[in-house]
């Protein structure tokens, strides 16, 4: 994909997010900037506690920013918004949650859960129209209309996650933040959920920010990948570019951790360990995120960037 002339759909600029507990300030995310273009799937990968979910929740306006801004179609969506703008953003940007058992209201029927967003924005003409929309979407995610009167605890994990997807898709959003939508699911049904997400992308042109830590899943679903470590972006590149030419040592360590489905190779494989203190010397040169060409960004000091460029284009 050629990104040079396109307007980004969603854009994060120098975003800082910190959590305060009395006098303790914890910076969860620092200087994060990246763009997401219409119709693509961008994956945000990194280890636990790296700030992936925090960024996702900042986009759906749950976590406030302490610095920087987020724009959507050129308009700022972070900070205070007018009521009309707020409603507009809420409807267009939806979220799919990690744990389908925790994110569905146990005391509400599936019908209410799916209709919740429709009620809030009155996205239906009359009761009949609402029922039709709900029945259509429940069939689209592979469930049955007879499930509508049931409660979430009666469903399997995969079925619940499909209810979670249905309630976002029924809002007809343009952008979805999928926060590890398959990490709580059984391996055997992960592909089903991923294919469902892809199907909706093909049908409705939805853009995804896919938050994950499983690189093999990420490779399957995403167009571009953002690697994040301790709240900072380490590397951004198109999927195959990143997998073929990982430049940052942290990305390399992630790649080396992907299990190989061959016991002999897996046994012999040497893990690449990322040790930031030993690997980088930022005492004299300050690091930054630099495009080394072709939309491949790497975080490093000027001398490191030169080294990365030499490795990539030799």
């Amino acid at each position, binding site marked *: 994909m050629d990104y040079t002339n396109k307007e980004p759909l969603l854009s994060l600029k120098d975003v800082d997010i910190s959590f305060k507990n009395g006098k303790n300030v914890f910076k969860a995310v620092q200087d994060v900037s990246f763009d997401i273009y219409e119709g693509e799937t961008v994956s945000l990968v990194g280890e636990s506690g790296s700030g992936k979910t925090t960024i996702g929740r900042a986009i759906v306006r749950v976590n406030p920013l302490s610095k920087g801004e987020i724009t959507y179609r050129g308009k700022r969506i972070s900070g205070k918004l007018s009521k009309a703008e707020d409603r507009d953003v809420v409807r267009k940007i*939806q979220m799919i949650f990690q744990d389908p058992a925790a994110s569905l209201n146990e005391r509400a029927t599936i019908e209410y859960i799916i209709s919740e967003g429709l009620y809030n924005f009155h996205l239906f003409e009359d009761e009949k129209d609402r029922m039709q929309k709900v029945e259509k979407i429940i069939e689209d995610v592979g*469930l049955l209309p007879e499930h509508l009167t049931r409660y979430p605890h009666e469903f399997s994990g995969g079925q619940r996650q499909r209810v*979670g997807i249905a309630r976002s898709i029924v809002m007809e959003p343009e952008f979805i933040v999928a926060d590890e939508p398959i990490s709580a699911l059984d391996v055997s049904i992960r592909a089903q959920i991923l294919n469902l997400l892809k199907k909706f992308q093909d049908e409705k042109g939805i853009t995804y920010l896919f938050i994950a830590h499983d690189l093999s899943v990420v490779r399957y679903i995403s167009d571009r990948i953002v690697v994040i470590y301790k709240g900072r972006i380490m590397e951004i590149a198109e999927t195959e570019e990143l997998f073929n030419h990982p430049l940052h040592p942290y990305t390399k360590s992630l790649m080396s951790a992907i299990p190989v489905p061959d016991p002999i190779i897996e046994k012999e494989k040497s893990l690449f360990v990322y040790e930031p203190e030993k690997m980088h010397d930022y005492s004299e040169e300050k690091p930054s995120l630099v495009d080394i060409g072709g939309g491949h960004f790497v975080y490093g000091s000027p001398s490191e960037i030169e080294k990365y460029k030499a490795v990539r284009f030799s």
Partner: protein
Amino acid sequence: MADIDTNAVVNEDELFRFIDHDTIESEKIIAPRYSYWRSVFRVFFRKKSSWVMIVLLVLLLLCSFVLPIFCPYRPNENVTLSTSFHLSPKEAMQYFAERGQGGIKWILGTGSTGNSIFYGIWSSARTSLLLAIICAAINMTIGVVVGAVWGYSKSVDQVLLVIYSIIANVPFILMITVLVYVIGSGFWSFIFALTITGWFGIAYFFRTQVLIIRDREYSLASRCLGTPTSRIVSKNIMPFLTSVIVTILATELPSYISMEVFLSYIGVGLSANVASLGRMIQEAQTAFLTYWWEFWPPVFIAAVLTIILYVLGQNLADATDPRTHM
């Protein structure tokens, strides 16, 4: 394992065969439909103690609400007959039978003014029950509504916590005593005294419960769907607190009965013209060894009422907890 012939040649085709997989069929749920309230009643009536207590409660309700309509309690009806004072059950039955007024009315003897203890306890039980029900209704409604707002809003929380700390540190008995002294000791002023700050404790308890479940992920999901706060409270928080509400009710209802008994006993409760269990006990306290029939019936009724309400409340609280529905 010895009898398995390991040399037998088994054709794998005979052991395994493909079955058709129907994706629609595999999504079907065959478990019976779940209904929250139906399950609550099923679990509630599964317990024998619920049935026993309900029968007892109906009997008590009949005696205390229906009986006084036909047989009103008149404490001063025999006040001129000084020979009828402090009669034991046996003596009273005999005494009034001789005067052609015998009957079940005197089965528990007479009190200090020749009043019927039997009618007295039912009239008193009615007062106590009414008091408990009205106080619980007022305190629970205010407490739960305020508690829900208190738990949900961080700014309200800061203000109410300060007020709560102040009120919670004023001794309850002192406050009631002052209030009863200021506004008099009638039935309604007693209710006023019990409810003016009584809801605060319930609201505080409820606030803590709301805090626990406020930030659950489904509420976050509702916010992402643009659900207004009022509906998040009513749809995402309140249904989860049904069992908490019933549990509070189960402890509050009997506590008002005990509280009335206690406050009347120490002399700051209802006024003398209102028959109540507390007053009956207070009046008979000095004579509970000599005129035992005046002291023990109201104590017994107060205890039975408390136990019935408590057991029923606990059973209902258990039944409203969906973890017991499986």
